[in-house]
């Protein structure tokens, strides 16, 4: 989501950052981990147990992850950044740009139609949030 929003900070090395800080755009591998007090968002996404060696992480799919996608400030901000990144031009140009940045392809005719209809009645940020929430973005083929 950070890459797609265009704001990812690729700084390597150095001190860790607080993952729940909205102004933090560094990669998750630089998140500060207090093992007795892991932030909820980290636990929700199957972060490894910080007390022992974990050879393989367990994968779950649960509603709390969906709640994060739907309601968290992080995703809200990422959606806004994506919308701003393609903030100019016709609806078609904007939707195409969003698809290419997020999903690596152009939208089909049907998807273009659905998108245009949606943004007539809703904010662009709500639309980009949907794209950020899709399975296509989340799962690798």
């Amino acid at each position, binding site marked *: 989501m950070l890459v797609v929003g*265009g704001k990812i900070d690729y700084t390597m090395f150095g001190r860790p950052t607080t993952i729940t800080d909205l102004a933090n755009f560094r990669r998750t591998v630089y998140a500060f981990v207090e093992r*007795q*007090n*892991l932030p*909820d*968002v980290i*636990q*929700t*996404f*199957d*972060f490894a*147990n910080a*007390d*022992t060696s*974990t050879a393989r992480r*367990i*994968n*779950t*799919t*649960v*509603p*709390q*992850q*969906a*709640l*994060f*996608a*739907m*309601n*968290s400030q992080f995703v*809200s901000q990422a959606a806004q950044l994506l919308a701003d*990144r393609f903030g100019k031009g016709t609806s078609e140009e904007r939707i*195409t*740009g969003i698809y*290419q*940045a997020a999903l*690596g*392809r*152009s939208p089909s005719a*049907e*998807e273009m139609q*659905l998108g245009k209809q*949606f943004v007539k*009645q*809703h904010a662009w940020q*709500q639309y980009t*949030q*949907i794209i950020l*929430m*899709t*399975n*296509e973005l*989340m*799962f*690798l*083929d």
Partner: protein
Amino acid sequence: MQQPFQLPLTRRDALRSMGTGLGLLALPGLLEAAGNPLAPKDPHFRPRAKHIIHIYLNGGPSQVDTWDPKPELTKFGGKKLPLTNLTTERETGVALASPFKFKQHGESGLWCSDVFDKTASQHADKLCVIRSMHANTPNHEQSMRLMNTGDERLSRPSYGSWLTYGLGSENQNLPGFVTLCTGLPVADSSNWRSAFLPGIYQGTYLDTRKKEVEKLIANIRNPKIPQADQRKQLDLLATLNRRHQKDRSEDPNLEARIESFELAYRMQMEATDALDISRETKETQQLYGADKVHGRQLLIARRLIERGVRVVQCYHGDVQPWDSHGDIANAHKKLGQEADGPIAALIGDLDRLGLLDETLIICGGEFGRTPAVEIPIGRSSPPTGRDHNHHGFTVWLAGGGVKGGMAYGNTDAFGYQAVENKVHVHDLHATMLHLMGFDHERLTYRHAGRDFSLTDVHGRVVKDLLA
């Protein structure tokens, strides 16, 4: 700005187009069972209890001042106790007689001090008081973890996580294991962690310093997008996801994720409803004393188990409120005034609603306190309190298949160590699992090369406690 690009071929397309059979090579990985980790499951045998409410008096309440009357201690007040050296956290001195009065209650004649007068006078015949509890170490961190996870140091799942793992959840719109505290108890979230079990079995912690319902569960509401708009969002999301899924129908993760959004949408409404005590009658709110946090927590606990939540823990307060190293007469009196009314209300309310039989109530702390007075560090003030005591302490049970109106086991004449029918924390765990329908030796999870369980190599079910 980056150049727009097109992926030439997805890996899946490439495999498919490379001739017969090659596409199928991808299949075994894709068929990795996703399933729903919270789908309801049956326990090993018919359970007596379906829910647990653990009223956790964190800090270590003193048994000789609450549920374990010791006339010999009164006689020895001010004199050195004739006992061999028992390890405590700090230095202790002569015997300190209890400043509280004890009475007998109910038809069973159960003894209790005025600290818990309301609970005892209203419900003595429902309570199963275990006087012979014992643990391993007179320190909070270790004993909190032992009481909650079965191990003092190593990272182990809490009993709430084990039970959610074993039972799933009856109500898919709420978390299966919830902990409530105004702040955090000692050892923080290691008390409700899932450790090596999947993260979804972790307890959902609610900071009850927050009174507004919407702040209690993370991300339960969208502060910017109204619900009608959100519904439209999710509809479009579902449409896009289903199109995506058409070519990938063998992947169960996709379906699981599509469903998780619908569950999350419903959870938004159901969780905020469950936590909203203003929906209770004024009468009920007053009964619990819900204007104060202890009553509010227990009322929330009742609402949660009514809706199928399996385990709810209610901690008395931040850090260790019952840890009366000093001024035990006033400290325990005040703590009792906070806890007694709401506890009595909860038991009565569950009984009235017909839920007491299927709800196991556990009440106690991580250890007890010494009958000998604690010598303040540096002797800076007169000795008026008690030190930690893991050698013998009291935990009581009610509902959920336990015998009422009884006291089980005994400490020595002064209430220092458990001597008769001793119940270790592991034994308590084995008994709790038994009441919830599990053989503690068979509820296991494979990790690091062997099967683990809550009780590991310890624990026996205390059959005498069962109704």
